[in-house]
C-alpha cells in the first residue's frame, strides 16, 4: 500500500497526519468477500483439521435426528423413513392418552416416572455424598494415608457397567434347591434388614429394592471419583483463611460453615446445575443389565422402554419403532429444556456459563 493512502496533509498544523477515515476503509476492505475468502484459504489446514470431526458428528449424531421423522410416520421395515406414510401425532397421542387396543400408555408413564425418580434420588443422595467425602479427605493430613484412600475410592469408577452389574447379580442372587443365595443378601439377613424369604427370592427380582440397589451401587461407583473436583476446591483455600477464623475463636464446625462452604460454593452450584441439566438422561446400560421382567414396575426407564419396543420389537405390534422414537424424543426434549434452563440460571447467577 502506498504512503499517500494513509497520510493526508493537514493544513492546520502544516504536516502530514494519518487519515482518520482510513481505518474505516481498511475495515470495509477486510470484510469484502474476496478478502474473507483469502484469509480462509490461507488457513485451509485449520479447516481441513475440522473436517473429520464434523463428518463423524454429522453421520452419527445428526443423521439419527433425521430418523426422528419416524415419530410422525407409520413404521415400516422395508421403506426408508422418507418413504413412510405420515400419521401425524398418532404415536404421541397413543403414548400420552392411550388407545383402546393396547396398554402402552400406562407403561410409558411408568417409564417416565421411573426415569425422573431414579435421577431425582440420584441427585438427592448421590450429589451430597462426594462433597462430604471431599470434606473428610481434607482432614486426612498424612499423604500416604490419603493416597491409599484415594486410590481405593476412585477404583470403582473404572470398572465397567458389565463388571459392576455382574457382581451385583451374583452378590444378591436368588437361592434355589441346588444353590445358596448371594453373600450380600446373607449379610443383610444377618443384620435383620431383609428376611429369609426375600433373600431366597433374590433382591433383583423384587421391585421395591431396585431403586435402592441402583442408588447404592451408583454411590459406590462414583462418590470417590466425583469428590476430586470438590477436594481440589477445598485444598485451594488459603491457610490464612483458617488461621483468621481460628483467631476469631471459630471451632471446627464454625470453620466449615464460614470458611470452607463459602469457598467451594461456586463449585457446588456449578456441579448441581450440571446434575439438574442431566436429570432425565439416565444411562440405559446399567438399567438393562440390572432389570428383568419382575422389576419393570420400578426399573423401566424411557430409554429401555424405547429399546424394548423399538429395537427388540417386543409385543410385535409393528408400531414399536414409532412408539420408541416418540417416547424418547419427548424425554430428550424435556431434558434439553432442563439443560438450557440450568445453563441460563448459571449464567445469570454467577457469570459462569457451562457451555
Amino acid at each position, binding site marked *: 500500500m502506498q504512503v499517500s493512502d494513509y497520510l493526508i496533509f493537514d493544513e492546520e498544523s502544516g504536516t502530514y497526519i494519518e487519515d482518520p477515515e482510513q481505518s474505516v476503509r481498511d475495515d470495509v476492505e477486510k470484510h469484502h468477500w474476496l478478502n474473507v475468502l483469502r484469509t480462509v484459504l490461507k488457513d485451509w489446514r485449520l479447516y481441513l483439521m475440522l473436517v473429520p*470431526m464434523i463428518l*463423524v458428528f454429522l453421520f452419527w449424531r445428526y443423521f439419527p435426528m433425521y430418523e426422528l421423522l419416524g415419530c410422525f410416520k407409520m413404521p415400516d421395515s422395508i421403506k426408508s423413513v422418507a418413504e413412510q406414510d405420515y400419521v401425524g401425532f398418532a404415536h404421541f397421542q397413543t403414548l400420552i392418552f392411550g388407545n383402546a387396543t393396547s396398554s402402552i400408555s400406562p407403561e410409558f408413564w411408568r417409564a417416565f416416572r421411573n426415569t425422573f425418580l431414579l435421577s431425582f434420588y440420584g441427585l438427592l443422595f448421590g450429589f451430597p455424598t462426594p462433597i462430604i467425602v471431599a470434606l473428610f479427605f481434607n482432614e486426612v493430613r498424612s499423604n500416604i494415608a490419603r493416597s491409599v484412600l484415594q486410590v481405593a475410592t476412585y477404583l470403582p469408577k473404572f470398572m465397567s457397567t458389565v463388571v459392576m452389574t455382574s457382581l451385583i447379580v451374583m452378590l444378591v442372587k436368588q437361592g434355589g434347591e441346588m444353590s*445358596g443365595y448371594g453373600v450380600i443378601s446373607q449379610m443383610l439377613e444377618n443384620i435383620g434388614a431383609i428376611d429369609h424369604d426375600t433373600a431366597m427370592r433374590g433382591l433383583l427380582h423384587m421391585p421395591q429394592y431396585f431403586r435402592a440397589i441402583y442408588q447404592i451401587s451408583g454411590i459406590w461407583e462414583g462418590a470417590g471419583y466425583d469428590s476430586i473436583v470438590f477436594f481440589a476446591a477445598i485444598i485451594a483455600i488459603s491457610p490464612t483463611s483458617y488461621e483468621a477464623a481460628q483467631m476469631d475463636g471459630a471451632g471446627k464446625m464454625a470453620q466449615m460453615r464460614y470458611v470452607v462452604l463459602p469457598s467451594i460454593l461456586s463449585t457446588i452450584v456449578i456441579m448441581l446445575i450440571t446434575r439438574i441439566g442431566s436429570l432425565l438422561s439416565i444411562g440405559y446400560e446399567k438399567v438393562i443389565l440390572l432389570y428383568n421382567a419382575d422389576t419393570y414396575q420400578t426399573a423401566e426407564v424411557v430409554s429401555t422402554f424405547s429399546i424394548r419396543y423399538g429395537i427388540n420389537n417386543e409385543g410385535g405390534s409393528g408400531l414399536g419403532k414409532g412408539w420408541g422414537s416418540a417416547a424418547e424424543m419427548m424425554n430428550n426434549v424435556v431434558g434439553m429444556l432442563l439443560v438450557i434452563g440450568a445453563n441460563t440460571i448459571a449464567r445469570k447467577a454467577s457469570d459462569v456459563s457451562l457451555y
Partner: protein
Amino acid sequence: MKRKLEISELIFKIISYTLLTMFAICCLYPFIYTISASISDYDAVNYSKVVLLPKNIQFEAFAKMFNDNMFWNSYTNTLFLTFYGTIWELVLSILGAYALSKKRLMFRKGFNFFLVFTMWFSAGTVPQYLNYLDTQKVFNTIGITDDKWLVVLAMGMAAMNIILLRNSFEGVPSEIEEAAIVDGATEMQVLWRVYIPMSKSIIATVALFFGLSRWNGYYWAKTMMSNANEHPLMVYIRKTLDMYQDTEQMIGWSENYAPDSMIYAMIICSIIPILIIYPFIQKYFAKGVNAGGVK
C-alpha cells in the same frame, strides 16, 4: 507453629478417618471377594460360604477359562476395539479441538454450537439404531463386512471431551505459537511440538476416558454385532453370566468349581489391564479433571 488440637477438631478428624476407611473398605470389598470366590471350590461359592477369604482353594475355574477359546477370542476383540477406537477418537478430537481453539477460525461459534448441541439433545436409541443399520449397509457395499469397524468408527466421540481439549488448547500462550511460526513451523508442527506437549495431562485424561469407554462398551457392540465371534469381552462375560444364572444349567454340573467362579475369574482378567494402566495415568487425571471440570 504447632497448635493444640481443639476437641471438636479431634472428633471431626476421628470421624473422617473412620468413615473414609469404611468407605474405602466397601469400595475394595467386592474386588477382594471376587478374587476369593474365583479360587474357592464349588460348595463354598455356591452356598455362599466365602465371605472374605477363599475356602478350599482350587484353580480349575482359571484353568477352564484359560482353555476357553471363545474367551480369548473376545479378549482379542476388545483389545482391537480399544486400540483402534481410542486412536481414532483421539486423533479426531485433537485435530478438531485444535482448530476450534483458534480465534481466527471463521464460523467458530457455529462449529462450537454444532458440537454442544449434541450434548443437549440426542435423537435417542431407536433412531441411533436405525442409523447404525444404515451405516452397516453402506459399509457392506463399500466392502467393509466386519462389524468391528462399525463399532470403532461410528460409536463414541463425546463432545464433552473435545471441549475439555479445546479449553486446554486455548490456555496455551499465543506467544509460543507465534515464536514457532516465526521459526518456520507449519500448522501441524505447531500442534505436534507446542500444543500437545503443553497439554499432556488433559490429553492423558481424555485418552483414559476414551480407552475406558471402549474397553467397557457393551450395548451397541452386542446389538450391532450379529456374529458371536466378533463380540468383545464385556458381551461375552454377560452372556456367560446369563447362561449360568439360569438354574436349569446347574443340573448335571459336576465340576469342582462353581459356575460363578468362572465369571469371577473372567472379571479379574478383564480388569487387570485397567489396574496396570491406572497408576501411570492417575497423576495426570487428578490434574486433568480439575482443569476441565469447572471452567
